[in-house]
């Protein structure tokens, strides 16, 4: 029976691991280094059947297997298969995840693990023993606790009330001059090789404390040199040690009261002698000299030495180097050095294994998704939703809004009903705007601030009755806003009911100077006045009609049960056919609102944007007794503030959004939004100046831009009130 190592045949016996067969053939699975044959080091790892960093000592030899050594210098080349569908979620991953819930998971089936499992079973617990020899290779322990296991068929997540780590202890590898030669094995490995009838030739056994160096020729060990100067020729050097290295990597991954360590894995063994020469970390090829160098540069704690030298960051995650690294730091610092933190995964995973059952955040579709596709929309992801970017000609969409009538799908807006005896009090505290004086049937634009007075969202507050309101939020901010409102009202202990309606209601914005005419045609003879709202049937669909304006034209948002979205949309499109009704996408909407100078939270604003910085102090009533952010705004009101969002205009095409804004040679800010406005006849922008004194003339894209009052379009707002 044979397999191929670097395209050369290697004979093996039934029951051989790849590593044993390779040693039997007088070779080394890598290019040198002591072998433990117990999975503790990375010195036998190779590319097996296309999977690099496979521990060949734990992989049974199979006929026809292709094994390739990793390069002597550097890592194995990355195999990058072209993605079939780069935007698809990895639902089709070939590796599945199975799950089990047990009382107790015991990791390790040695003496201590077997004893722990027997004891738990005797106590009536449901026990699962996880051991790599049984095909359960534990790669990580997470809080929960959850044990992540690789099996030959799939990944396994074991949810256990308790996890017992009984992984035993490992032989300590030698660190000295010549320790990367071929022909060096640990005591345990020698046992395995003898058991498998592998001829080791002339052997010399040496204790770590007596080892000075290995001598060799052409990468093969030829002699062991002892600390007393003796040199003994050999074909195989067997390293023994009175001390051991606890296999506690899994235990160091998690701090969880449900995780315990037993047996040799929990022992505190003496450290080996401080290394003075050789490679400490074979995986990352870190030498004792490297450790000394980073130590001399001031990295004088074990975790820092690890990070600076990369000692312990390779395949075996410290399995080889940990005792020697601790011995080095302990001697240098004079204080016992504890092991470094362990992090999953303890075994090298393939991307498919790591990605098994991991899903991207989903993007929702509105109920009008198919309508948009039928109309030729180019869809894009925005604020957690698939939304129409345009329908092929965004300027046509723009003009439909400005001169005719258009539909926009605003189903993605956050929507919430709040009701209760304390609802006004709650909203007064949530919003910086006065709420109590909003009359039923009226609505008000509001900002949402955090405790630091920074803008986190905006929307509308629509009063339906004395104790019931409808709130709207931005599409991207809706989920956070819901949690925000719920958390605060619960914190305050106010008597308020909250129902999120974001997924339940569709919303269509009917906008343009002919919007009122379109509504008349579908059964709304008298539409609400600006900033009014009411419930009415529209084309037979129960709607909450909100009149506001983000586009700058008359606009009516029709909020309705989502089951009727398509029907309502189709009816409106049909009724507006002779008005040349045209739906508009986000691209046109962004242009329209920019002409009005309306900011988009998260696009024009930053994480620390206050109302003052975007010239929206008018939306903040500091004479209110309290609201979230009031204290911070009061405290900072008189402090110098160097940031402002300005309207800008300039000749020529619109610059790229994000373009730097210069004053002379100095960058003072950036363009947040830009559009070549046909109604203004110039490129219009919202842009930040972050250094005062602010100036009226700046440079963008090498052209002169002038600070200009906003709105750029219809500054009196007359068109929204038509």
């Amino acid at each position, binding site marked *: 029976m044979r397999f191929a190592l670097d395209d050369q045949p290697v004979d093996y016996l039934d029951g051989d691991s790849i590593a044993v067969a390779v040693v039997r053939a007088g070779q080394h699975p890598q290019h040198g280094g002591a072998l433990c044959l117990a999975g503790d080091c990375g010195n036998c790892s190779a590319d097996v059947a296309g999977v690099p960093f496979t521990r060949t000592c734990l992989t049974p030899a199979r006929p026809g297997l292709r094994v390739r050594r990793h390069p002597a210098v550097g890592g194995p080349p990355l195999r990058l298969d072209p993605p079939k569908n780069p935007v698809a979620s990895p639902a089709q991953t070939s590796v599945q995840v199975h*799950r089990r819930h047990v009382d107790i998971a015991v990791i390790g089936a040695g003496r201590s693990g077997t004893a722990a499992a027997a004891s738990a079973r005797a106590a009536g617990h449901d026990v699962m023993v996880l051991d790599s020899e049984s095909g359960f290779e534990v790669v990580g322990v997470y809080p929960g606790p959850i044990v992540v296991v690789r099996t030959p068929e799939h990944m396994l997540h074991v949810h256990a009330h308790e996890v017992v780590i009984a992984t035993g202890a490992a032989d300590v590898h030698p660190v000295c001059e010549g320790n990367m030669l071929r022909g060096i094995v640990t005591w345990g490995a020698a046992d395995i090789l003898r058991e498998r009838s592998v001829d080791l030739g002339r052997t010399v056994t040496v204790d770590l404390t007596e080892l000075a160096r290995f001598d060799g020729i052409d990468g093969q060990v030829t002699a062991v040199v002892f600390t007393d100067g003796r040199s003994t020729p050999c074909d195989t050097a067997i390293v023994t040690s009175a001390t051991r290295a606890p296999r506690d990597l899994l235990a160091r991954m998690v701090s969880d009261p449900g995780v315990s360590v037993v047996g040799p894995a929990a022992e505190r063994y003496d450290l080996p002698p401080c290394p003075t020469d050789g490679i400490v970390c074979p995986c990352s090829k870190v030498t004792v000299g490297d450790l000394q160098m980073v130590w001399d540069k001031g990295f004088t704690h074990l975790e820092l030495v690890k990070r600076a030298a990369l000692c312990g960051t390779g395949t075996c995650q410290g399995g080889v180097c940990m005792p020697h690294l601790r011995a080095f730091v302990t001697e240098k610092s004079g204080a016992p050095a504890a092991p470094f933190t362990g992090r999953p995964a303890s075994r090298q995973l393939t991307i498919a294994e790591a990605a098994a*059952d991991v899903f991207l955040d989903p993007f*929702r579709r509105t*109920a009008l998704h198919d309508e948009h596709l039928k109309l030729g929309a180019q869809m894009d992801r925005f604020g957690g939703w698939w939304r129409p970017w345009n329908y092929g000609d965004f300027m046509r969409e723009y003009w439909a809004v400005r001169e005719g009538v258009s539909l926009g799908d605003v189903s993605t807006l956050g929507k919430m009903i709040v009701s209760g005896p304390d609802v006004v009090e709650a909203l007064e505290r949530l919003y910086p705007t006065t709420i109590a004086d909003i009359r039923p049937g009226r609505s008000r634009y509001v900002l949402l601030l955090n405790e630091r007075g920074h803008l986190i969202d905006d929307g509308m507050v629509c009063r339906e009755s004395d104790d019931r309101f409808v709130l709207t939020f931005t599409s991207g901010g809706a989920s956070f806003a819901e949690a925000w409102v719920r958390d605060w009202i619960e914190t305050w202990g106010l008597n308020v*009911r*909250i129902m999120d309606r974001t997924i339940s209601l569709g919303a269509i914005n009917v906008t343009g100077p002919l919007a009122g005419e379109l509504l008349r045609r579908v059964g709304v003879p008298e539409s609400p006045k600006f900033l009014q709202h009411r419930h009415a049937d529209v084309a037979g669909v129960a709607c909450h009609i909100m009149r506001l304006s983000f586009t700058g034209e008359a606009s009516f948002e029709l909020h309705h049960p989502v*089951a*009727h979205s398509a029907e309502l949309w189709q009816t409106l499109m049909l009724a507006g056919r002779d008005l040349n009704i045209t739906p508009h996408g986000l691209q046109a909407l962004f242009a329209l609102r920019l002409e009005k100078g309306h900011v988009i939270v998260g696009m024009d604003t930053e994480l620390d944007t206050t109302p003052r910085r975007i010239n929206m102090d008018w939306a903040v009533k500091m004479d209110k007794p309290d609201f979230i952010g009031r204290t911070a705004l009061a405290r900072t009101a008189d402090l110098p503030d160097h940031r402002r969002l300005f309207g800008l205009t300039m000749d020529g095409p619109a610059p790229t959004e994000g373009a730097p804004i210069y004053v002379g040679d100095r960058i003072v800010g950036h363009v947040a939004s830009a559009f070549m406005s046909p109604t203004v006849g110039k490129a219009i922008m919202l842009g930040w100046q972050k250094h005062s004194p602010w100036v009226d003339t700046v440079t963008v894209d090498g052209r002169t831009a002038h600070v200009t009052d906003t709105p750029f379009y219809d500054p009196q707002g007359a068109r929204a009130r038509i």
Partner: protein
Amino acid sequence: MIRRVPVRASERLYGLRVVATPEALDHARFAGSAGSAGSAGSAGEVTVLRIASDEVLALGAVDADVADPHAIVELETGFVGWHLTAAEFVSNVERHIEWLLPTHRPALAQGLIAGLPLKLWFDDDHDHDHDHDHDHDYVLVIASSGLAHEVVERLGVPA
């Protein structure tokens, strides 16, 4: 009662969503339409899912009697559901669930499944050992309609 005729493709779920005080919801009464079936039940039947201490999704309900003057009672059409047999549930859904499923019946379970926020309604008229109940509807998988396409893709259930 989950109806016996399997509905493999998704269907929109109609009902009422109610937010009120927990006490009021404990004693709330719901009425279904005499002529139309709630999606999870036969004509006139209502399946009440307590999705939070202060919130109910009453599938099939057209009217609610809730003793809370500030209760919010709204028509709900934003969810879709799939009726699955035990075998379909095991092969398509259960392997993606990281958390323990309830063993009592009836039971509502809610959580992330394959990265999606889903609800599972296990009715009370089936053997708890679902391996013995492969031929009948076993569970109603409920998702926001906006995520239906993702449920189809990730769980392999029909659109």
